[in-house]
């Protein structure tokens, strides 16, 4: 009674990798440009590095450059050299990428001469394909005849209010449904799967008596680094490890005026802490530079400076932090850190170990733990936590230390402070069996919708 016409079209669209290449160029294009701009000859590994690609791209890139005839590879004693005489024109792969852009296009809409390029890009996982099914239903003459002219009291599809109230429900027969047949799927509202995990972590920390701290994403270098006794001339504070702001570039240290001098003197000569200090000239100008918060420990500084600070106290934060990194399988440029502090006169290294062990058991569900000496510029002693889980083996789960007196004393804290941090992103990836850290911020709505709740 109903005629079904199904048309299936295959559509192609850019994968996450494809979007990267759309914005920044195919890896072989990027490498060729670097080599051409460097005078036409460059070692493969240098070219790959300068193009901002990881070194495991070397064989991929040399393969495509050879195949596309974009240049020559010369084997020398010191390694392979790429020779690129001129910048090759845009090729079919790049044309396909540009055409597809941000959307999803049916393969048939692309000119036939680009089909090979599409296949190549599909194989390279730069594009992905999806079947789109269009179903057209049409009532046949037979179907039309089957529609009753008069509503019979014999078989109805559903109860109505009238039937219920009038009592007619006794006279009718309800059409039998095939309760086993599939029904339309729904897309309900749900929490984001990774945020749900973070909420769980927060709940666990609250259950252990920790109070949440929050703070701004933009900090002065004073709070982000100086207060943590990181010397201003340390190479780790250069442009490779911190995002500095161009606009606005500085902020006033006025809110911290009571402690700036103390911090400055501590850096220069140890002030009253009993330390030798770093022995350099402290710069207030450097301190007022603005950065994107690079670690959750900046929030611990704010907690220690807060007028609401309680001692004894246990504080935590799940802080969004930023570091200059290229996005890849193991690196994000924007990520979450779980960090916090414990303050009390009675605290010792044994308590530090106790806190770490509790986290390993309660947050990571570990079966056993072990500790290794570690190093952070702002804590001494410092300890690395390794957690063992049946089926997973040993994994590094976090680090902790007792803040150096050079950190706490200028801020007016006179008790030992345990500072701790947990690798919760890695824990999430392990639990969900995710291999690529970019998945945490995925734009794949289908993946987000499909994640299980329990």
């Amino acid at each position: 009674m109903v005629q079904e016409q199904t048309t299936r079209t295959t559509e192609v669209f850019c994968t996450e990798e494809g979007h990267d290449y759309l914005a920044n160029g195919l890896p072989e294009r990027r490498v060729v440009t670097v080599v051409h701009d460097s005078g036409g000859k460059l070692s493969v590994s240098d070219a790959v590095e300068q193009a901002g690609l990881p070194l495991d791209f070397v064989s991929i890139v040399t393969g495509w450059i050879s195949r596309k005839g974009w240049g020559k590879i010369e084997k020398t004693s010191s390694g392979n050299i790429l020779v690129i005489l001129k910048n090759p024109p845009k090729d079919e792969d790049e044309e396909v990428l540009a055409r597809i852009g941000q959307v999803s296009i049916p393969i048939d809409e692309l000119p036939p001469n680009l089909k090979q390029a599409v296949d190549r890009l599909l194989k390279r996982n730069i594009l992905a394909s999806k079947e789109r099914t269009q179903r057209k239903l049409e009532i046949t003459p037979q179907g039309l005849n089957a529609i009753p002219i008069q509503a019979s009291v014999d078989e109805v599809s559903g109860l109505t209010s009238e039937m219920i109230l009038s009592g007619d429900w006794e006279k009718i027969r309800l059409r039998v449904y095939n309760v086993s047949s599939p029904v339309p799927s729904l897309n309900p509202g749900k929490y984001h799967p990774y945020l749900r995990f973070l909420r769980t972590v927060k709940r666990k920390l609250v259950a252990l008596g920790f109070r949440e701290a929050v703070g701004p994403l933009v900090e002065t270098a004073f709070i982000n680094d100086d207060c943590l006794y990181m010397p201003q001339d340390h190479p780790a504070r250069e442009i490779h490890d911190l995002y500095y702001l161009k606009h606005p570039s500085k902020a006033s240290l006025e809110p911290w005026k009571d402690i700036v001098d103390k911090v400055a003197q501590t850096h220069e000569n140890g002030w009253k802490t009993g330390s030798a200090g770093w022995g350099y000239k402290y710069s207030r100008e450097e301190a007022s530079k603005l950065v994107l918060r690079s670690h959750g420990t900046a929030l611990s500084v704010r907690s220690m400076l807060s007028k609401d600070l309680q001692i004894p106290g246990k504080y935590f934060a799940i802080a969004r932090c930023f570091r200059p990194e290229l996005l890849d399988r193991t690196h994000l440029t924007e990520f979450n850190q779980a960090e916090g502090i414990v303050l009390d006169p009675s605290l010792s290294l044994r308590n530090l170990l106790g806190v770490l062990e509790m986290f390993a058991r309660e947050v990571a569900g570990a079966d056993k733990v072990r500790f290794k000496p570690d190093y952070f510029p702002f804590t001494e002693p410092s300890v690395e936590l390794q957690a063992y889980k049946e089926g997973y083996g040993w994994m590094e789960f976090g680090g902790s230390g007792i803040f150096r007196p050079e950190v706490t004393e200028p801020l007016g804290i006179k008790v030992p402070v345990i500072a701790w941090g947990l690798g919760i992103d890695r824990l999430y990836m392990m639990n969900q069996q995710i291999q690529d850290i970019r998945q945490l911020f995925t734009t794949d709505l289908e993946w987000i919708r499909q994640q299980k709740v329990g």
Partner: protein
Amino acid sequence: MGQKVPRDEDGLNELLGYVKGDVESLDEQNDGVSIEVKDSNHPDIWSVEGIARALRTHLGLAKPKAPILSGNSGLRVTVDRRLGPIRPFIATSVVRNVKPSENALKSWISLQEKMDLTYGRKRKRASIGFYQADLIKSPLRYAVGDPDDAAFVPLGSTEKMTLREIVEKHPKGIEYGTIISSFKEWPLLTDGEGKILSLPPIINSNDLGKVNTDTKNILVEVTGTNATTVGNTLKIVVAALAERGGKIYSCNQTYPDKGAKPVITPDLKSSFKELSVSYANRLLGASFKPAEMIRAFVRAGHPARQVSKDMLRVESLCYRSDIMHQVDLVEDLAIALDINKLDPEWPRIWTLGGLAPETERNETLAEVMIGLGYQELLTYSLTSPEVFVDKMGIEHENHVQLLNPKMSTHTAMRSWLLPSILNLLKDNTHVDYPQKVFEIGPCVLVKENGEGQTETRYKIAAVTIHTAAGFTEIRSCLDTLLASIGLQFQVVPTTRPSFLEGRTGEVMSGQKRIGVVGELHPKIIRAWGLSLPVAAFELEIPPTVVA
């Protein structure tokens, strides 16, 4: 070290724990291992020699032995007063009897590189040079030279270059030239016969500055801008050379200050700190006896003795530049005593836990949106103006810009949330519609007062996109949301560049503007590669995060 080390990763890792080291990779073919040392303030263990020395005492194979001077080398160095504002400090030493193996040389050069980079702060604070001592005649002159006049053959080159040419063309000059290039005259180290040894901190001479496996006597030179750092650097390097059998000889530096006595380097004297036994026990949470602590300190490379009931006198050998405070000693003690032997104890304090009020508020909003059938999203707050300005049809927005972005897609902090959501929706045109999504996330606003003030604010944005998406639908959601939290509000007509005129409203709470609600303009819809109607709202809800 005096003993065979395990060859497997676990065995090595256990051993390296004493020096905060981890096995990074094993090179079975060459019987080598790549070690990552985590302490960036502990230069004396950044070499094979240093690690062996530390492990030797930890394993009880030997007692800590201070390096000693075998005598004065007779080498004198005069320092020119003009170096005062440029690079005033120098420390030298002659180490005799070396004849290094290939591995030893590699180790020393690697130590030199690491120290120059980290401890020497990319050579600015201190830099190291090695020379063939036998080719050099006393007295050395550490003075200044004319960048365009003085010239020599730099290491790795065959032609003579002026100082300026070196800074402009030689790779090391390009890398480190800025340390000295702003001055009119540059540091120059020459010997008693006027031969140029080096252009500190850039590069040595090819003739005098190349040490090889035949070199019997090495001149170690350190120059820099901080006297302590320069002195420490020299001590650490000569101590490493001495580990391989070298004999350390001192040199005399004469500074231009009135009637100054010559500074004799290296100063291999140990430093001493008094440490209270009860303080150490309190910090560790233990009750070790003084004798146990002393034994542990010896294993950690610190000779120690008891001077009173509660006091120990702990000696730090000359190369321990990292001992700044007693806590540094207590950590060494903890490592020697093995932290895994301490009994972990949860702190005996009671504290009341809780979420921040901002989080509680955000959770309430999320709960309502989910109840309305909206899927929660998570997007990057670090994005680009293309996303939240250009593609939204806006001409200008005062926002946070990065000085050193690494990707063109992440150069600025978003000032509003809706564009990030559209940025996600554009990747999902092949996914089933309707798509109803929301996010509660941070944005950063730049305050208009120009004092470099920024404010981090959480916002909530919701978007509905499907064939029948429209104002009524999204306004219903907005009303439901605000009614649930008991907020009084009105919606007044307004125009916004991203939205359709006649279908856009400003959300007001009293006199305060708290958001926008409306249908997206088709130009914006197309700019994002979407092809269905889009309706959205974005709100700022107090309390917000205070900057």
